């Protein structure tokens, strides 16, 4: 039986009543650490600040601006005295000077930073969030009160209108008669025999080089040479994104040159050019022929092929060079302008060069401008190259059965939605962000900027 008894009195006697005044390891550690840790933190901050201003950054810069990581004041210029250094629109426009989106029409224009969120490590700063666009386009207000575009667009998945070219009332402005169905039939008469045509025989992105399989064997006029090498209608296009324009010399001539043959006495076909050029070509050809064939007046005059419309045959015998020339050119004109050209072109009969009807002497016809749209999306970007893993008919599925020129073969928004979703990669889908197709700024009006840094200045740590 232990004799030690713990009474309160006994215990109290053990205590040093001043114990709380004495240093104790745990309290001492707490005190010193409470001094040391903030000092270390302040030291870390000071050391970081001494080498770079990045310590203040809220996140990594976008890929395009990463090179400015050591030069914060390029964008964060000090204004309003010494303290304020927020990024202003002026700082952005020093390098990216482009007019804002419909600046003259929209009710208000947002600042650059409200859509292009920097310091989030974005690989592409131009890829803005849909919310940036929807803040206006969900209920579009303009200064005039009547927006030119659909008033409410909230997302791509559900609340985006059908493409303008496919809405009721829209029509194909093209004036070339083309039957896709006929062109895709097997055993078409090709330049050297039967052929099976493919989409890419006529439609390729502009950047793809190489010969066109149904191109003109040789360029015959300066006009055609120029046409073959330019993409006149391809405004703001990227050569990898849009199809090369359809040109007679590139895509048609290989097969259709025979439609410009006008007289078996000549190997050369008429040029694919304006009527007055064709007419001058014919006059020149027949003048040369008459000069080199003294018995031309005695040769029987007969049309090259069956002519359209009614004509009294045989034609009267010409008595002189002028009558012979008139007959030859009349026959060639009818063969070309009334048949060959009309196969593809819309001819505006009886109109002069100024478009007015001429009376008396038969006027040369006018050929309606082909007006094949180089781009169907006038307010959106599209890249065929990005979609190259797909077959053409995967999207343009109505094309093989299209018989009418007026058929608009642009895929509808439903086709795009098959792959593109707002949530994008999260749903194993392509992005459906506004910025995938639409650009806010009108970059055609971008003004040039003048650089002001040397590499050393830009890369020097500050």
């Amino acid at each position, binding site marked *: 039986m232990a004799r030690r008894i713990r009474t309160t009195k006994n215990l109290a006697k053990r205590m040093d009543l001043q114990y709380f005044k004495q240093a*104790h390891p745990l309290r001492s550690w707490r005190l010193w650490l409470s001094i040391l840790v903030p000092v270390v933190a302040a030291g870390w901050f000071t050391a970081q600040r001494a080498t770079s201003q990045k310590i203040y950054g809220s996140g990594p810069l976008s890929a395009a601006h990463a090179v400015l990581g050591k030069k914060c004041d390029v964008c964060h210029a000090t204004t309003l005295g010494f303290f304020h250094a927020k990024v202003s629109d002026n700082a952005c426009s020093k390098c990216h000077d482009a007019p804002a989106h419909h600046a003259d029409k929209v009710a208000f224009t947002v600042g650059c930073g409200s859509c292009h969120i920097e310091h989030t490590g974005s690989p592409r700063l131009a890829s803005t969030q849909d919310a940036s666009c929807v803040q206006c386009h969900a209920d579009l207000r303009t200064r005039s009160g009547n927006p030119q575009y659909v008033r409410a667009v909230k997302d791509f998945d559900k609340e985006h209108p059908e493409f303008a070219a496919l809405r009721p009332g829209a029509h194909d402005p093209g004036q070339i008669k083309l039957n896709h169905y006929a062109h895709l039939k097997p055993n078409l008469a090709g330049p050297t025999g039967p052929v099976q045509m493919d989409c890419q025989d006529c439609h390729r992105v502009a950047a793809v080089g190489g010969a066109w399989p149904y191109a003109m064997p040789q360029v015959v006029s300066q006009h055609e040479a120029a046409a073959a090498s330019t993409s006149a209608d391809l405004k703001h296009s990227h050569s990898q994104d849009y199809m090369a324009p359809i040109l007679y010399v590139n895509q048609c001539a290989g097969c259709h040159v025979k439609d410009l043959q006008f007289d078996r006495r000549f190997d050369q076909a008429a040029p694919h050019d304006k009527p007055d050029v064709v007419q001058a070509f014919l006059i020149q050809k027949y003048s040369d022929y008459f000069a080199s064939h003294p018995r031309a007046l005695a040769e029987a005059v007969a049309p090259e092929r069956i002519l359209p419309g009614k004509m009294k045959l045989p034609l009267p015998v010409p008595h002189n060079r002028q009558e012979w020339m008139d007959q030859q050119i009349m026959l060639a004109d009818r063969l070309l302008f009334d048949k060959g050209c009309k196969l593809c072109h819309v001819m505006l009969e009886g109109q002069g060069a100024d478009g007015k009807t001429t009376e008396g002497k038969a006027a040369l016809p006018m050929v309606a401008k082909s007006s094949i749209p180089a781009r169907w999306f006038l307010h959106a970007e599209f890249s065929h190259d990005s979609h190259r893993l797909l077959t053409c008919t995967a999207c343009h599925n109505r094309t093989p059965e299209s018989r009418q020129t007026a058929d608009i073969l642009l895929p509808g928004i439903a086709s795009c939605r098959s792959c593109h979703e707002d949530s994008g990669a999260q749903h194993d889908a392509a992005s459906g962000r506004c910025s995938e197709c639409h650009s806010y700024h009108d970059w055609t009006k971008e003004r040039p900027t003048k650089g002001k840094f040397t590499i050393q200045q830009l890369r020097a740590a500050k």
Partner: protein
Amino acid sequence: MRIDETHRKWFIGSLAALVVAAAVYVPYSRNAPEGANGGTVAGLIYGSVASAFMLFAGLLGARKKVPIWRVGRAQAWMRGHLWLGFLSFPLILFHSGFRFGVGLTKGLMWLFVVVFVSGIVGAVLQHFMPRLTTQRIPLETIYEQIGRVRSQLVAEAQTLIEEGSAALRGSVSRATEQQRAASASAGTIGGLTVASGLQVDEGASIQLQDFFRREMQPYIAHGGSKGMALADRNRSQAMFQQLRVLLPPNMHPSVDDLENICEEKRELDQQTQYHRILHAWLLVHIPASYALLLLGAVHAVMALRY
């Protein structure tokens, strides 16, 4: 501080505030063109409120330093520290859009994680450990006095050993009254005559002193003493049982006292261990909190600049 019924109002208030903050955050983060971040109006509001809560939580230290301040009861401050400090973390996440950022903001967020997690650990420990300590350590004393009590235990044991040794050597003059009384009353225990008076046993005396010098004195004098034989209750009991066999029955009360001293020392060691567990988190929480407040102030100023 135990989180009990008295925290009900704080808990409900904090939960309601958190729900409101989250309810505002969801549409805000979805609709803000630039996404949720500290630079938006909503982001600044979240940041400001969270900073105010953190500052209040930080002022608890000052409140404790000056207990006579008439600024509310210490318990109310503690509850405020606990719940507002807890609330400040989700608010800061709403402020940052759940991003840690880079540079200073990244440092701040990690510091805050350290402060928040250590605070949670501390709150859990403060809830459970005091009761556990009371249950398991009946001989609990003031933590800061443990060293002093240990010295007293050494002195007490020393006295018992010296008295016992003297008695064993036959020095009646050095035997205590109790020992003399015990010897006088010694008789038959359990049918066996174990003693008839103070024994004279020089060998036992030497062994008793040897036991004290080699085992008991080092064990009691030093804190922790992990690995020593007497730190283990079972081994300790076995050792004292051997001592009882060695010593005459009239010495057994002294042996019991010595064993009791060792038991008290074991409890002091356990109290030390519990105290360290209960308070070690403060070595992380408080310094990190000061660093957080310091760098947070820098962040607030520089965020206004940039």
